[in-house]
C-alpha cells in the first residue's frame, strides 16, 4: 500500500516542479516550489529520515522560501516585468534537457541495480544516530560549515548595504 504512496507523491513532485519552471508569474513559481519541497518532505518521512524531514521543513520551506518570497515582493515583480526568451531558445533548452535525461536513464539501464529498498535499521535517520555521526567522524566539516554560514552572512550584509558615498 505504501509503495503506492511513493508513486503518488513522486507524480506530485514531478508535476509541481514542472509548474515551477513553466509558471509565468514568479510568485506562482515560488508557491509551486514550496509545494515541491513539501512532497520532498513526504519522501523523507517515507524513507524514515525523520531528522532530514524536519530540517527540510524548517530550513527549506521556512527560511529559504520566505527569503525568496521576500525578495520577490521587495522587487515588485509580476507578469508585466517578466522577461521571456524567444521560442527557439525555449525549444532548444527543452531538447537539451531531454537529451540529458535520456543519457542519465540510458546509462542507468546499463547497470543492473534494482534491488528493493529495505530499511535494515529503523533508527538510521533519527536524531540520535545522526548526531553521533555528526559530532564524531564529521566534527571538522560541521564546524567548518558554521564558518561558511558566518562568511555568507557577512557577505550578504555587505552586498545589500547601500553605498553611503554614492547615495
Amino acid at each position: 500500500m505504501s509503495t503506492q504512496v511513493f508513486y503518488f507523491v513522486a507524480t506530485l513532485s514531478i508535476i509541481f516542479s514542472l509548474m515551477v519552471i513553466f509558471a509565468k508569474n514568479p510568485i506562482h513559481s515560488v508557491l509551486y516550489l514550496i509545494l515541491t519541497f513539501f512532497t520532498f518532505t513526504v519522501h523523507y518521512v517515507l524513507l524514515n529520515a525523520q531528522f532530514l524531514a524536519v530540517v527540510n521543513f524548517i530550513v527549506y520551506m521556512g527560511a529559504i522560501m520566505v527569503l525568496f518570497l521576500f525578495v520577490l515582493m521587495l522587487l515588485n515583480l509580476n507578469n508585466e516585468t517578466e522577461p521571456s526568451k524567444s521560442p527557439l531558445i525555449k525549444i532548444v533548452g527543452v531538447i537539451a534537457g531531454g537529451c540529458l535525461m535520456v543519457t542519465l536513464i540510458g546509462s542507468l539501464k546499463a547497470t543492473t541495480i534494482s534491488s528493493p529498498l529495505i530499511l535494515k535499521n529503523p533508527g538510521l535517520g533519527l536524531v540520535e544516530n545522526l548526531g553521533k555521526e555528526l559530532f564524531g567522524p564529521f566534527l571538522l566539516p560541521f564546524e567548518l560549515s558554521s564558518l561558511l554560514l558566518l562568511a555568507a552572512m557577512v557577505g550578504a550584509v555587505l552586498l545589500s548595504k547601500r553605498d553611503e558615498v554614492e547615495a
Partner: protein
Amino acid sequence: MENLTTQMAGVPLNHYIYLSAIIFTIGVIGVLTRRNAIVIFMSVELMLNAVNLLLTAFSVHSNDPSGQVFVFFIMALAAAEVAVGLAIIVMVYRNTKSIDINVLNRLKW
C-alpha cells in the same frame, strides 16, 4: 509510523534514481529556458533537492548514516548560497532596474 516504513520495502532503488533524474532534468531545463534570475535560482534549488533525495535513498539502501549527514551539509550550503545569491540579485536590480540576466552579458567584456 513504524508500520508505514516497514512496508516501504517494495519500492526499488531504480525508481528513486528515475525520480531524481527527472527532477534534476527539470531543474536544468529551467536554467536553460528562463531569463528571470530568481526563477533560475529556484531551478538550482530543484537540482540540489533531487541530489538530496538520491543521497538519502542510497543512505537507506546501504544502511550508512553518512549519506544523510551529507544531505545536512548540502542544506547548510544551500542556505548560504541563497543568502549571498539573493543579495547579489537585489544589488543587480538596484543598479539595472531589471533582473533579466541578459542585461548582464556586458560582464563578458
